Every structure is written in C-alpha cells, then in structure tokens.
C-alpha cells in the first residue's frame, strides 16, 4: 500500500475493539520519549511487535538496513530529520508501509503538506485506542488482499 494522500476522514468507522494481531509490526517515530512509550504500549496491547525511533533519520536508516514494518507512526516535528522529510524519503525508497502522521494541533495547511509527503492518514496527538483499532482493521484488510 503506497501513500495516496488519503485524508483521515476516508477511514471506515468500524470498531477495532477486537482487533488483536500477532503478525503485524510497527515503527513509532517520535522525538518525545513520552509519545514513544504511549504509542508503544497502545500498539503492543493489540499484539503488534513494535520498534521505536527518535527521529526521521533513524527511521529511514532502519529501512535502509533492510527492516520493514506494516505500520509507521510518524511524528511531524523532530530534530535531525522531521516527519515530512522522512516520509518523502521513505516513499522515494519505495516503502509501501502504511505511514500515519501524528501532529500537534496544526493549521490545515500544515497537515496538508504532511499528507502530500506521502502519508496514508494524519491524526492529531495522541492516537486513541479507537483510531489505532481502525488503522489495524485497515491494515488487516489490505494484508488479506495481498
């Protein structure tokens, strides 16, 4: 699944309460230790195997080294390499993971620029269990099609 600039409103609002998947992997990219921990715990509750990266460059380097993830949660504002640059670079490398942007309360223009970098979806921090469940439902649907 490649980035298609879909907005968050295009997700089907299906409850993800019972989604537990032991095969999916996720990468949490955020310079905040707090957000890394929170998203890590949230995703592990759904049975995902999770790795974390403290900025976009670390994330890109992981992919360069051959790592792959079903889901990438990408913070926007990070030192060294921000989320916009990292997303562009990952898509240019041919990465087809679901990349979900996570932002603070930005203006619509800033979120649009982030989406155009190649995100599949973009949400405000923090991601709620409901949103994570819906994202995993979408991931499972796409994995079944492949």
């Amino acid at each position, binding site marked *: 699944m490649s980035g298609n600039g879909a907005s968050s409103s295009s997700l089907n609002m299906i409850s993800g309460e019972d989604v537990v998947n032991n095969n999916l992997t996720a990468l949490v990219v955020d310079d*905040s230790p*707090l957000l890394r921990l929170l998203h890590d715990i949230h995703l592990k509750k759904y049975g995902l195997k999770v790795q974390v990266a403290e900025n976009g460059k670390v994330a890109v380097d992981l992919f360069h080294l051959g790592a792959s993830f079903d889901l990438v949660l990408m913070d926007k504002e990070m030192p060294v390499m921000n989320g916009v640059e990292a997303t562009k670079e990952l898509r240019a490398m041919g990465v087809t993971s679901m990349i979900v942007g996570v932002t603070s309360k930005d203006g619509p223009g800033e979120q649009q620029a982030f989406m155009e970098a190649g995100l599949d979806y973009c949400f405000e*921090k*923090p991601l709620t269990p409901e949103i994570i469940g819906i994202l995993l439902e979408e991931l499972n649907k796409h994995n079944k099609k492949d």
Partner: protein
Amino acid sequence: MLGLAADRLRADMNRLLSFLFHQGILDEQFLQLQQLQDETSPNFVSEVVNIYFHESEKLLRNLRSLLMDREFSDYNKMGIHLNQFMGSSSSIGAKRIRNVCLAFRAASDQNNRAGCLSALEVLEHEYCFLKNKLHELFQIQQQRVLAAGVRYPMQH
C-alpha cells in the same frame, strides 16, 4: 477498621479525580492512560506522568530562557517547544495546560513577546498546580495499596 481506611482512601481518590475533571484540568485521555495500566505494567500511569514532568520542566526552562534573552527573536524555536509541550500534555490528558499552550502559541505566532511572557507565567502556574495534584493522587493510591495489603495478611 482497615477496610474502612481503604474505602475512605478510594473516596478521597475519586473526589480528587472528579475535581480535576470537573475543573477541566484533566480530560478523558487520563482515563485512557489508567486503562492501559494492568498487572504487566502496574506503575504505568506514574511512569508516564514522571516522564511528562521531566519533559515539561525541560521545555519550561527552554521557554523561559528564550524569553529572558534580550535579543530574543526566534519565535519559530518557541513554536517547536510549544508544539512538543502541547503534544505531551494532550497525551496525558492535561487539558488546561494544553489550552494555555494554544494561547501561548497564538501570541508566539504574532511575535507578541509581552503576550508570550504572560502566557509563560500562566503555564508555569498551571504546571505546578497539576504536578502537585497528581503527586497527591499517586500518594493516595499508594496508601490505598498499603491499606489493602495490610487487610489481607499472608497465611503461613
């Protein structure tokens, strides 16, 4: 007697939480944090909140340092710190702090130094208030655990 102590502490805890929600100091995101706590991560909430305290104090120092500089003009840098503070505050449900950050960011976007200073004062005050209340909450929770533990001594 000990059962009554645990019940009284639970009532104190619920009263404090109600106050914090009713006053708009915390929002439902804090409840989401509590729901993530279980037997595999029994101190999850206090660990997360302690990380939040550590990050927040660093950000507050950075913001004050920027504004105290007579030649300060890097509002972009201030915006980055504020975005971080907003993100982490939203994540633990610190609703009032997040709202103050929004007002602070509005002043920063207008390059309004006086407005930023005023907002920083409010932010520091709100942060201290929240920190004290959360410490109080964790103390009550600890006492509750101890009271419950004494109530059920091990049988040898």
